[in-house]
């Protein structure tokens, strides 16, 4: 569970220019268009210790993004990887690879050093050359960081592969579900449990500024909101409130937690300063006000309220001022989450007996529905604001984690094989 430190070496590997064909427009991958053909890319096994595993993790990441099509290694012609020399571009053109990622792993003084290069095959040019150093057991994070570097270089968007997901792992029968707080890498690797399943846990969230999560627990004796530090293991309750406390989220600077308090059947949104531990109430309508989510600059909060008679999405100042409804389609809107880039608000919508994950602009315009099923709910944003993870449950089944990109084109189950709900994506790890 503890995050191991990773050192990013700043060395950039540069190749001397080679006389080549006339310069061609650089390859580019467009994340915003829903109709792109994934870019054929070759990621042969890196030479050295763990080299094949690292290449495999990179390939899987790129393929899962829906923007790349890693080619079958059995088709590769050039076999000797030596990143000290230019690749035999002809061999790669022959199998229609437009991009090539090759690399080598060396062990120096008990540390893993991974060098890699990203090549534009048809332009016969190196696009990127970097080096990472880490402890040997951290090789997966190196693969994720390389994936992010390749993704960013080719799409112009920041990557999202060196991240983790905190969620609720579910087991047991539908009438008596066992819920355990859990955390894993975004590709489903390294899952571990954070609670023991003896009480209900719900709706965890990451802090964007520290290795801290917040979540809600529910026992017959009452509810509580916890802060849990992943590095130190320290766990503390947010404090005692009269009534049910739920729906906790951090502010973007990590200094505050917004949450709901229910009293006498009425639920309102509060915000607490983590330094002073004083709270202020942001909503006072006799309606359900819950599921707050801060804008990335911390100045506004989007939330769920049924003050109009049915659950809808509202935006207000972070001080509770001027709440304004932004959802106007037919149906019920809940679980609003502001994207980390500020561009979109994702939500769950119920209409016609179906559940949908959708996005809209922060002013409510441009609503687009991305998914539809018996029960899709609770989207969370990848830190680059391009991909959402959510929970999907079939009628009579158990929930599983799925992801969809913001165009709606790339929809797939997450690699984690177990049952899970309430996912929350971490920021890019340091």
């Amino acid at each position, binding site marked *: 569970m503890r995050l191991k430190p990773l050192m990013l070496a700043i060395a950039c590997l540069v190749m001397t220019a080679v006389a080549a064909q006339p310069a061609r427009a650089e390859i580019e991958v467009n994340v915003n268009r829903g109709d792109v053909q994934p870019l054929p890319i070759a990621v042969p096994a890196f030479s050295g210790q763990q080299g094949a595993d690292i290449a495999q993790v990179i390939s899987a990441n790129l393929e899962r993004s829906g923007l790349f099509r890693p080619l079958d290694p059995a088709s590769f012609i050039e076999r000797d990887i030596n990143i000290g020399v230019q690749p035999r571009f002809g061999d790669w053109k022959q199998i229609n690879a437009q991009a090539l990622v090759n690399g080598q792993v060396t062990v120096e003084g008990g540390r893993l050093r991974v060098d890699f290069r990203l090549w534009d095959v048809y332009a016969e040019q190196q696009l990127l050359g970097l080096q990472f150093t880490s402890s040997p057991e951290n090789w997966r994070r190196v693969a994720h960081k390389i994936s992010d570097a390749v993704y960013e270089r080719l799409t112009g968007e920041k990557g999202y592969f060196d991240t983790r997901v905190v969620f609720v792992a579910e087991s047991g*029968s*539908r*009438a008596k*579900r066992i*819920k355990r707080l859990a955390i894993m890498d975004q590709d489903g690797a390294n899952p571990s449990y954070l609670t023991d399943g003896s009480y*209900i846990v*719900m*709706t965890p969230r990451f802090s964007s500024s520290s290795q801290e999560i917040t979540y809600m627990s*529910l026992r*017959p004796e*009452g*509810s509580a909101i916890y802060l849990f530090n992943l590095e130190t293991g320290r766990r503390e309750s947010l404090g005692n409130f009269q009534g*049910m406390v*739920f*729906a906790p989220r951090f502010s973007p600077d990590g200094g505050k937690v917004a949450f*709901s308090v*229910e009293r*006498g*059947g009425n*639920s309102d949104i509060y915000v607490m300063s983590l330094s002073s531990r004083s709270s202020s109430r942001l909503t006072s309508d006799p309606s*359900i006000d*819950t*599921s707050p989510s801060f804008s990335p600059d911390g100045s506004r909060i989007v939330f*769920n309220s*049924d003050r109009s008679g*049915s*659950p809808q999405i509202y935006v207000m100042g972070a001080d509770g001022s001027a709440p304004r409804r932004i959802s106007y389609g037919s149906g019920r809107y*809940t*679980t609003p989450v502001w994207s980390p880039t500020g561009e979109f608000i994702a939500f*769950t919508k*119920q209409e016609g007996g179906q559940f949908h994950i959708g996005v809209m602009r922060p002013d409510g315009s441009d609503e687009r529905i991305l998914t539809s099923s018996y*029960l899709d*709910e*609770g989207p969370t944003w990848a830190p680059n604001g391009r991909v959402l993870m959510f929970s999907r449950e079939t*009628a*009579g089944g158990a929930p599983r984690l799925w992801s969809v990109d913001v165009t709606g084109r790339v929809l797939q189950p997450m690699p984690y094989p177990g049952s899970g*709900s*309430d996912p929350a994506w971490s920021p890019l790890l340091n």
Partner: protein
Amino acid sequence: MVRSVNTSAALRLALVGAAALSLAACASRPKPQPEAAPPATTPPPAAQPSETPPPVSGGPIAPVPGSTQDFVINVGERVYFDLDSHDVRDDARPILDAQSAWLRRYPSVRVRIEGNADERGTREYNLALGARRANAVRDYLVNAGVTSDRISTISFGKEQPIDPGTSEEAYQKNRNARTAIVSGAR
């Protein structure tokens, strides 16, 4: 083979011997008059088909008045709600009236009202909806004369369905509030 004569065999021999001696002795005395044989005892009536004994009634004994069982069985611990609603329905009123009467009869009992929702909603909103339902029941009971310090509320949202099915009937069962006895019952 030498047989040892055991004690009981010797005793029997002695009794027989004694009987023989007494008979011999009786021979020299006047024969006693035979007495009228005592009347034969009435033979037991011939076995007749007797009535099957009444069956032992199985099953629970009536709940102790004032017990949790009494409350659950004789009063009813759950009331049900319409979709998206927390209004106390007409069919819930008699049950809640009976609950309040029972609670007033047993003033040491404390209860926790648990509000529940069906799965056709999202997690946090349904938690809030369950809380509304729990509070609607609480308000009803308080208005009916149960003091509020005896009642706590909690919501389980959609986390604890009593029916795991996916039919409308199952969803209806899961839209409920349960009055759970937490202390003070017999």
